[in-house]
C-alpha cells in the first residue's frame, strides 16, 4: 500500500448471503451511516473504525455475484470499485467458508483487478461444524493475498482482519482467460481495463464482452476447481440434513403454505393491532406537546404555524414509525434466516402471472395496514421491473386509513338492519371494497407488466441459502436504518406538504376570518359553527368550490371537495373534515356526523343529499384514488424520480374518477 493517508478507504464486496452486513456491523459497531448513491435507488452503507491510530472508512457494497453486473445493485457495487470519488484503497472480499466454490468466482475477479485486497472466510464456525477443513495457508499461496477466517457473529477474527487490512497487497496471481482476451480484446492491456470500461459505459454490453464473460466464467471455474481440490477437505457425508428437513416442511404443498399464512397472520397482528398502541402514544404525546407549545408561545400566526403546521406535520410522520419498524423487524428475520427465499420459491408461480414476483407477496399484503412500509419493503425485490410494479400497484390495496371512510359511508347507506341470510350486508360491502382493491392491484400489475420497459433481464435464478439463526444486531440495524430513511428522506416531503395543507385550511383571502369572528361574537354563533364557516371561507374552501364543476359528474359537492383536499394528509382526515364542515363536533364521535349527513338535504332538489348513488360513488373513489401524500413521498424516496409518484397519482386518481363517474351515472 502507498504512503499513509489520513483516512484509508476500505470496500466490502461479496455475494448476497455471504454475511457481509454482519461483518460490516462487527467492524464498525455503531459508527455507521446510511446514504444514497447518486441517481440510483440503492442505499449506501458506510462506517468507520480506528485501528492502531489509523482511521478507516468502510463501505458495505451491495451484494453481487460477479463483476459483470446483471442488476442495478450489482452495477453500483462494481462502479464504486472504480470510482474516483470513493477512492477505494483496499478491497475486502467476503466469502461464505461453507460454500467457497461459488464465492471464489467473484473473489478471483476482484484479485485480477490488481487492487490491494484481503479475502475473508466468513462464518467459519459453520464450516467447522460441517467438518470442512480449509487449508488457509494453501489458499493464501494460490491467491497470493492474505486470507482471514472470521466468525462475525462473535467477532472472532475481526482483529486479525483489521491487521490484514493494514498489510493488504496486490496479488501477483492471475485467473482470467488470457487467451480469450487476446483474441477478443487485442488492444486491452489487462483484465482491469476490460472490466473498467464495461462498468463505466452505460450502454448495453457488447456481444464481444458477453462472449468473453462466458468463456472467462468457465475458465475461472476450472481454476477454482483446482483451488478447491487443493485447499478443502470435505467430509464423506456433508451435513445438510437440517436444511433438507426444513425445506421438506417449508416448501411442502400443504404445510409450506400453512406456515406462510401463519407468518402473514403474525405480521398482520403486529402491524395492525400491536402497532396501534405506540401509534396512540405518539399521537397523544404530540397532542400534549402541541397544547403546551400553543399555550407557552405568544398567540398569533407563528404559534399557529408551529403548532398546527409543523408539529402536527411531524406527528403525522412519526406516527408511521411503529408500523415501519415492526414490518422490517419481521422482514429482516425472514431474510436473515433464509426463509424469505423459500416463500418466494413456493409463491413464484402464482405471482408471475401478474408480472409480480414471489417476493411481492409480503409488501402487497402488508399494505392492508399501510402502503408506506409496504413500498419500502419492496426493496427486497432484486429485479427492477418487478419491484417497480409492486411499488406502483401496492397503494391500490385498501389500507387501514380508508377503513373509517368506508365505515362512515356504508353506515349512511345501510341504516338499520340489512342481512342476506346470515350475512350482514354492511360487512359484505366492506369486504367487497377490499376485494375490489386487491383485484385492481393485480389487474394494474398485469397491465404494467406489458407496459414497463427495462434493459434488465427478468429471471428467477436465486440462491436458496442454508437456514441460519437470525442475527439480532443485523435485524436491529436494518430496522434502525429504514426508520431513519423514512423520517429524514420521505419525512421532509411529507412535512412540506402538511404545511401547505395547514395553510390552505387555516387561511383565507383578505380579512374574511376576522369578519366571520366578529359576526360570531355579535350573533352568538357556536364555536363549531364558526369553524365550519371558517373552513368554508378558507383557501381550501375556495378550492373546493372551484373544483365543484369537475367533481359534480361524480355526485360530489364542494363540501366533499374540501374533504378530498384535506384527506390528502391521510385518508381518514376525510371524516374529521366532514365533521368540521357539518359542525358536528368531535370527529371521534361519528354517530352525530352520520345523522347529520343522512338528514342533509340537497339545496336545489330538497332531496337527501347523501343518496346511495353519492355514497357508492364516494366509496369507489376512495378505493382507487391516490389520496395520500405520505405514499407519494415514499414512492419518490424509493424510486428516486418524480415520474413514478406522478404516474401513481394520475393513474389511480384517473381510475377513481372514471369508476366513480360510471357508478354515479348508473345509479344516479
Amino acid at each position, binding site marked *: 500500500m502507498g504512503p499513509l493517508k489520513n483516512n484509508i478507504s476500505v470496500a466490502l464486496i461479496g455475494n448476497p448471503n455471504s454475511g457481509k452486513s454482519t461483518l460490516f456491523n462487527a467492524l464498525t459497531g455503531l459508527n455507521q451511516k446510511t446514504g444514497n448513491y447518486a441517481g440510483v435507488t440503492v442505499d449506501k452503507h458506510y462506517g468507520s473504525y480506528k485501528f492502531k491510530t489509523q482511521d478507516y472508512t468502510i463501505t458495505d457494497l451491495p451484494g453481487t455475484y460477479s463483476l*459483470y453486473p446483471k442488476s442495478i445493485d450489482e452495477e453500483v457495487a462494481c462502479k464504486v470499485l472504480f470510482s474516483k470519488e470513493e477512492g477505494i484503497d483496499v478491497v475486502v472480499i467476503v466469502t461464505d467458508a461453507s460454500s467457497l466454490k*461459488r464465492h471464489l468466482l467473484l473473489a478471483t475477479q476482484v484479485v485480477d483487478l490488481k487492487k490491494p485486497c484481503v479475502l475473508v472466510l466468513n462464518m467459519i464456525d459453520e464450516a467447522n461444524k460441517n467438518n470442512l477443513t480449509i487449508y488457509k495457508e494453501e489458499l493464501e499461496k494460490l491467491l497470493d493475498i492474505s486470507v482471514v477466517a472470521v466468525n462475525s457473529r462473535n467477532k472472532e477474527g475481526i482483529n486479525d482482519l483489521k491487521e490484514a487490512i493494514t498489510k493488504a497487497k496486490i496479488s501477483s496471481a492471475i485467473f482470467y482467460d488470457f487467451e480469450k482476451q487476446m483474441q477478443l480484446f487485442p488492444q486491452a492491456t489487462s483484465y482491469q481495463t476490460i472490466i473498467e470500461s464495461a462498468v463505466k459505459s452505460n450502454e448495453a454490453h457488447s456481444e464481444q464482452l458477453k462472449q468473453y464473460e462466458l468463456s472467462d466464467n468457465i475458465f475461472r471455474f476450472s481454476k477454482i476447481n483446482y483451488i478447491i481440490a487443493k485447499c478443502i477437505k470435505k467430509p464423506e457425508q456433508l451435513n445438510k440434513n437440517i436444511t433438507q428437513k426444513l425445506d421438506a416442511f417449508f416448501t411442502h*404443498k400443504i404445510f409450506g*403454505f400453512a406456515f406462510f399464512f401463519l407468518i402473514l397472520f403474525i405480521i398482520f397482528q403486529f402491524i395492525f393491532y400491536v402497532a396501534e398502541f405506540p401509534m396512540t402514544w405518539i399521537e397523544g404525546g404530540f397532542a400534549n406537546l402541541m397544547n403546551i407549545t400553543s399555550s407557552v408561545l405568544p398567540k398569533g400566526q407563528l404559534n399557529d404555524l408551529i403548532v398546527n403546521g409543523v408539529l402536527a406535520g411531524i406527528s403525522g410522520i412519526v406516527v408511521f414509525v411503529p408500523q415501519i419498524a415492526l414490518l422490517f423487524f419481521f422482514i429482516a428475520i425472514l431474510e436473515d434466516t433464509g426463509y424469505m427465499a423459500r416463500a418466494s420459491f413456493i409463491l413464484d408461480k402464482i405471482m408471475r402471472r401478474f408480472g409480480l414476483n414471489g417476493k411481492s407477496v409480503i409488501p402487497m399484503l402488508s399494505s392492508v395496514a399501510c402502503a408506506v412500509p409496504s413500498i419500502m419493503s419492496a426493496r427486497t425485490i432484486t429485479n427492477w421491473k418487478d419491484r417497480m410494479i409492486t411499488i406502483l400497484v401496492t397503494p391500490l390495496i385498501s389500507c387501514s386509513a380508508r377503513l373509517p371512510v368506508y365505515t362512515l359511508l356504508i353506515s349512511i347507506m345501510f341504516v338499520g338492519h340489512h342481512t342476506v341470510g346470515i350475512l350482514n350486508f354492511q360487512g359484505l360491502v366492506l369486504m367487497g371494497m377490499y376485494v375490489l382493491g386487491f383485484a385492481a392491484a393485480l389487474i394494474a400489475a398485469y397491465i404494467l407488466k406489458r407496459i414497463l420497459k427495462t434493459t434488465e433481464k427478468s*429471471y428467477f*435464478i436465486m440462491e436458496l441459502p442454508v437456514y441460519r439463526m437470525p442475527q439480532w444486531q443485523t435485524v436491529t440495524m436494518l430496522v434502525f436504518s429504514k426508520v431513519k430513511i423514512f423520517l429524514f428522506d420521505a419525512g421532509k416531503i411529507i412535512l412540506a406538504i402538511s404545511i401547505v395543507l395547514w395553510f390552505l385550511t387555516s387561511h383565507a383571502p383578505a380579512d374574511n376570518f376576522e369578519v366571520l369572528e366578529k359576526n360570531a361574537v355579535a350573533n352568538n354563533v357556536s364555536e363549531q359553527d364558526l369553524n365550519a364557516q371558517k373552513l368554508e371561507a378558507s383557501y381550501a374552501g375556495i378550492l373546493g368550490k372551484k373544483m365543484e364543476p369537475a367533481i359534480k359528474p361524480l355526485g360530489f359537492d364542494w363540501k366533499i371537495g374540501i374533504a378530498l383536499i384535506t384527506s390528502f394528509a391521510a385518508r381518514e382526515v376525510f371524516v374529521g373534515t366532514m365533521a368540521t364542515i357539518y359542525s358536528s363536533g368531535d370527529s371521534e364521535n361519528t354517530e352525530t356526523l352520520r345523522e347529520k349527513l343522512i338528514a342533509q338535504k340537497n339545496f336545489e332538489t330538497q332531496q337527501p343529499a347523501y343518496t346511495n348513488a353519492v355514497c357508492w360513488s364516494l366509496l369507489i373513489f376512495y378505493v382507487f384514488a391516490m389520496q395520500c401524500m405520505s405514499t407519494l413521498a415514499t414512492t419518490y424516496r424509493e424510486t428516486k424520480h418524480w415520474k413514478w409518484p406522478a404516474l401513481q397519482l394520475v393513474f389511480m386518481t384517473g381510475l377513481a374518477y372514471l369508476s366513480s363517474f360510471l357508478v354515479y351515472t348508473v345509479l344516479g
Partner: protein
Amino acid sequence: MVTLDNLKLGQSATVREFTDDFLSLKLTEMGCFPGEVVKLTNIAPFGDPIAIEVSGYQLSLRKQEAHTVIVERI
C-alpha cells in the same frame, strides 16, 4: 441428452451446454457451468420453479430457465 427441467427429483446430471445466451452468463456465474454435476433437489408445490444442488449449494430457477440447460443424466 435432456434439458435440466426434465430431471426427476433426486436425479443427478452433468451440465453440457446452454441454449440461451443471457441465461448462460447468469447460470455460469452461479456455479452452474459445463462439466459440473447438478442434482434436482426440490420442486415447488405447483411444479415450478425447481431447485438444484450445484457447486455445493442450492439454486432455484424456473422451469423455462432450466429448459435452456442441456444436461446428461448420470
